[in-house]
């Protein structure tokens, strides 16, 4: 039976086996290579900028700046990757980041703004604040049937408003211990690699390992692919969704804390589009807005394409507004490719 099954099946379902098999394998290759394609785009962008002005663009100083600028967005985008793979969305990350900053700052200022214990208390309170918003998002999304888009749009406003209430509407200053600024904020490992970048890289690697190698990651894909099938397979879907939104909230809190170390003050007004930047990065990286597919590597590329475009345009003297135009076009193209793939797949 084993030997005759495959040919019989092909004959049954498709008029010509040769015709049917070719696009199938080609498509499989294309799917596997989503991140690879977008990585090539990044390489081309870097090559073009390097060719046009190698000394300014490819300098250690400039590359360091690009990665420092990208690090907090990368931290958020890692969490967003998990959320989007479950076919969810988290619009609240920017506000949650600000809220966590304000909470951490107030705690640290209250404690005297000095010393290791203050730093740890600030970190813990920032993570706790972010995680709490994530828990709130997750509970509402998993237990009620309110769409994630609406829940996180609601908490976007709530977290932003709460942050302004707590801070009185002005940035909290004089709260960040100088030790934190010297190390995490400005310090470099071996005088070369900024700690900010190391933290973002660590989050990315751990996130990638969890997503691609563990049961937690497998469930994230399964739920985004078919939530009802996951439920029938015995996966506790609501509990997993809650964990994913908590993860997103925690990482927003961490990003907020890292930015405190860098700027020595809260940055209340600076993150209005952080959510959209993170979503764009994730989607440019090949993760499908419909859930079920995506990769952390793609997200890294998706964070760096806008960052490098902005930087390169400035260096070349092109008005930086063009960066927004270019990123928007790349985003639409990325989603277009995803749609084409899906349609080709459904025709099978």
């Amino acid at each position, binding site marked *: *039976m*084993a*030997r005759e*099954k*495959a040919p*019989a*099946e*092909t004959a*049954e*379902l*498709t008029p010509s086996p040769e015709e049917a*098999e070719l696009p*199938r*394998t080609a*498509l*499989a290759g294309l*799917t596997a290579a989503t991140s690879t394609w977008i990585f090539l785009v990044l390489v081309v962008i870097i090559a073009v900028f390097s060719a046009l002005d190698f000394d300014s663009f490819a300098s250690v100083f400039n590359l360091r700046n690009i990665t420092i600028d990208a690090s907090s967005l990368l931290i958020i985008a890692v969490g967003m990757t998990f959320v989007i793979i479950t076919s969810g969305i988290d619009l609240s990350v920017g506000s949650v980041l600000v809220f966590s900053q304000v909470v951490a700052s107030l705690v640290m200022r209250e404690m005297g703004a000095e010393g290791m214990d203050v730093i740890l208390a600030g970190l813990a309170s920032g993570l706790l604040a972010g995680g709490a918003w994530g828990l709130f998002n997750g509970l509402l999304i998993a237990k009620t049937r309110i769409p994630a888009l609406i829940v996180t749009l609601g908490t976007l406003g709530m977290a932003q408003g709460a942050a302004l209430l707590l801070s009185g509407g002005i940035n909290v200053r004089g709260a960040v211990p100088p030790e934190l600024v010297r190390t995490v904020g400005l310090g470099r490992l071996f005088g070369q690699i900024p700690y900010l970048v190391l933290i973002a890289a660590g989050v990315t690697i751990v996130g990638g390992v*969890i997503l691609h*190698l*563990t*049961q*937690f990651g*497998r469930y994230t*894909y*399964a739920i*985004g*692919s*078919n939530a*009802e*099938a*996951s*439920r*029938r*397979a*015995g*996966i506790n879907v609501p509990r997993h969704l809650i964990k994913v939104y908590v993860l997103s909230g925690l990482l927003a809190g961490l990003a907020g804390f890292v930015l405190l170390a860098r700027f020595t003050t809260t940055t209340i007004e600076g993150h209005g589009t952080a959510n959209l930047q993170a979503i764009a990065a994730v989607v440019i990286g090949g993760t499908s807005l419909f*859930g*079920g*597919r995506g990769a952390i590597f793609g997200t890294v590329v998706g964070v760096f394409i806008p960052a490098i475009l902005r930087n390169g345009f400035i260096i070349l003297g092109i008005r930086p507004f063009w960066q927004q135009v270019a990123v928007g076009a790349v985003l639409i193209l990325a989603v277009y490719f995803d749609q084409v793939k899906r349609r080709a*797949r*459904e025709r*099978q």
Partner: protein
Amino acid sequence: MTSPGVMNGHLLAAKGIVKSYGHVRALQGADFDVFPGEVAALVGDNGAGKSTLIKILSGTVRPDGGEIWFDGRTLTIQSPVEARHLGLETVYQDLALAADLDPAANLFLGREIRQPGLRGRLGFIDKKAMREKAEDAFATLGIGLQDIDVEVAMLSGGQRQAVAVSRAVTWASRVIFMDEPTAALGVVQAHRVLELIRRLRGSGMSVVLISHNLPQVFEVADRIQVLRLGRRVATLRPNQTTMEQVVGAMTGADLEAAS
């Protein structure tokens, strides 16, 4: 309501199951039973309550009332996980596959093999072991997948069906529910599924077959139980019945056929 041979020796039985969705009374005291090693067909017109009954027996839906007997004792099946612990598996009509995952991942969905030792306790899954076991399972069932690493969405309808069936067969130890397993298949493939059902019966498994296709039901079933308007109205043996009688029971045109 007594039907021939209901009370003794059955492996799984539903008695007086009631289930409403809002004002719709899907099941109004439905009975159903399965003996060890038999193919029990469940037939009925659209809306008769077949799928609801199967979902209740497989733990996906909870009944409002009634009893479920398994292995001589009454119990409640609160979730799909509980049904699985009892050795009951289901091939759903929609197949319940995660289309973005590969066949092996679907076979082990919710039952992933962990890495040995500390890594396993940290949640690391053993993709290689699952892939090898999935290959074995597909080979045993005679399912030819040219490429086992491709996602399920890339497979043909028949191959997807095969993945769903082999998942149920791999994990079931007592009963397999098959909800319209041949509906999406061509003639040849449908024949293979019926063959597989016979083989499963031969190995001592009970199979519950839900189908609209009466010729197929007559070909493979030991008993046919007819559901109409949320109740069992007849239990028939294919070799003592005509298809007209079954259709009569399904539509209510000939209730005498129910004997």
